[in-house]
C-alpha cells in the first residue's frame, strides 16, 4: 500500500470493502507462508492442535479452507486436550465440537486424567493457584504429542501467532535459556523426532487473528487459572511496543532468528526420558518429574530450581546425555 492510500480521508463507510479485502489478504498470506516454507507435502496427515480458543479455531478454519482452495491434498484432524478444569473446557470443547461439524474435520480429545491420572482441578486442589500453569503447560505439550501419535499423523500444527513468538523470544532472553532461544523462532521444530510441529501463524499478528473470527463467528475464552501469569508482563510489553511501532513484533522474531550462539557454548543434548520415552535433556522429562512430585505428595518438586530426582544427575547419568554445567533447559520455570 502506498503512503497516499494510507492517508486517504478517514471514512467509516468503506468498512465493507475493507473487510472483504482483509479476509482475502489474511488467507493468502497464510498460503504464502505455507508454500514458501514448504510446511506440508501432498497426502500428509495433519493434526491441528485445537484448544477452542481464537488462534486454533481460526487456524482450523483457514487450513481447511486453503486445503480445499489450493489442493494441498492434506488429511486434516482436530486434536484437543481436556485438562479437566471445571467450566473451562465445557465451552471450548463445545467450540471444538462445533468446528468438527462446521469444517468437517474429525476430532480426537485426550484427557489429562487418561494420560496422567490427574485432572487440573485435582492438581490445583493440591498445589493452589500459584505455579499450576507449569503443570498445565508441561502436561499439555506431551498430551498433544501423544494424541498426535494416536492419530498416526505426520505433523502437528499449532496456532502460535507472531505475538506469541515475539513474547517467547523475550522470555527466553530474560531466562537466559539459550537452547530454547535457538529453536523458538523455527517455523517447524522436531523434524528429527517422530512428529514435527509447525506454526503457520508465525508471521500473523494476534490482532489480525482477533479481527478475523468475525467471519467464522467464534467467541473467545481466557484461561481462568492464569490471570497473573508471568507471561502477562512480557505480553503487555509487546503490546506497548506494537502501539508505538507495529513492526516491532516481526522485528523481535527476526532478531530471535538471527541470534548466533557461540560454538564454544555447551548446549544441552536431547536424550530420552528413562521413565516414559519422551524427548528430554534430563534423565526424566519434566512431566515425569512433576508427576512424581504429585504422586509422592511433594508437588513443589520440579518447580523452580532443579532438586530432587534430577538433582542426582551429576552422579548417575544413564541416558547418554552429557553432564551440563550451564542451566539445563528442561528445568527452568517461572
Amino acid at each position, binding site marked *: 500500500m502506498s503512503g497516499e492510500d494510507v492517508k486517504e480521508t478517514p471514512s467509516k463507510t468503506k468498512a465493507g470493502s475493507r473487510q472483504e479485502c482483509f479476509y482475502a489478504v489474511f488467507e493468502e498470506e497464510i498460503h504464502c507462508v505455507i508454500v514458501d516454507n514448504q510446511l506440508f507435502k501432498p497426502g500428509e496427515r495433519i493434526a491441528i492442535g485445537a*484448544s477452542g480458543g*481464537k488462534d486454533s479455531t481460526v487456524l482450523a478454519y483457514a487450513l481447511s479452507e486453503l486445503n480445499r482452495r489450493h489442493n494441498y491434498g492434506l488429511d486434516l484432524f482436530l486434536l484437543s486436550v481436556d485438562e479437566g478444569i471445571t467450566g473451562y473446557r465445557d465451552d471450548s470443547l463445545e467450540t471444538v465440537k462445533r468446528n468438527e461439524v462446521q469444517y468437517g474435520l474429525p476430532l480426537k480429545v485426550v484427557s489429562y486424567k487418561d494420560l496422567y491420572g490427574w485432572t487440573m482441578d485435582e492438581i490445583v486442589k493440591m498445589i493452589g493457584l500459584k505455579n499450576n500453569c507449569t503443570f498445565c503447560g508441561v502436561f499439555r505439550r506431551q498430551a498433544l504429542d501423544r494424541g498426535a501419535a494416536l492419530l498416526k499423523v505426520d505433523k502437528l500444527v499449532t496456532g502460535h501467532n507472531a505475538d*506469541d513468538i515475539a513474547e517467547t523470544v523475550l522470555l527466553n532472553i530474560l531466562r537466559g535459556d539459550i537452547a530454547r532461544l535457538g529453536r523458538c523462532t523455527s517455523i517447524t521444530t522436531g523434524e528429527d523426532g517422530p512428529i514435527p510441529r509447525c506454526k503457520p501463524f508465525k508471521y500473523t499478528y494476534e490482532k489480525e487473528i*482477533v479481527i478475523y473470527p468475525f467471519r467464522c463467528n467464534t467467541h473467545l475464552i481466557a484461561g481462568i487459572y*492464569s490471570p497473573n501469569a508471568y507471561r502477562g508482563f512480557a505480553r*503487555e510489553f509487546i503490546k*506497548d511496543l506494537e502501539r508505538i511501532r507495529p513492526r516491532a513484533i516481526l522485528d523481535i522474531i527476526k532478531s530471535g532468528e538471527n541470534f548466533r550462539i557461540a560454538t564454544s557454548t555447551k548446549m544441552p543434548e536431547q536424550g530420552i526420558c528413562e521413565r516414559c520415552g519422551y524427548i528430554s535433556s534430563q534423565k526424566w522429562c519434566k512431566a515425569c518429574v512433576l508427576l512424581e512430585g504429585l504422586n509422592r505428595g511433594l508437588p513443589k518438586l520440579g518447580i523452580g530450581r532443579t532438586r530432587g530426582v534430577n538433582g542426582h544427575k551429576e552422579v548417575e547419568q544413564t541416558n547418554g546425555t552429557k553432564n551440563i554445567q550451564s542451566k539445563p533447559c528442561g528445568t527452568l520455570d517461572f
Partner: protein
Amino acid sequence: MQLTLEFGGGLELLCQSVKIHNVDVDQAGEEKLTMRHLLSWVRTNLIKERPEMFMKGDTVRPGVLVLVNDCDWELSGQLDTTLDDKDVVVFISTLHGG
C-alpha cells in the same frame, strides 16, 4: 446519541458481564461526539471494576482492539474518530490465553 457498544475478550467482565450495551450518550454541547469523549463516558458509566484493564492514560490499554462499525479505529483516526447516531463500537481485549 444512540450507540451500540460491545465488549469482548474478557472486557465484558469489567461491566457486569454484559457484552452488548445499547446506550444514549450525552454530547455535552459538542458538535460531534468523538471516540475520546466516548471512552471517558464508558469509563465513568459502564466500567464497574479494574478500569486499568480497559484504559491506560486517555486511550484504551495496548492490546485492546477497537472497531467502529466493524472497521479498525486506527483507520478512522483513533481518538479523533467521530461518531454518528446508531454507530456500533466494539472493544475486544487480546490480553488473554489463546
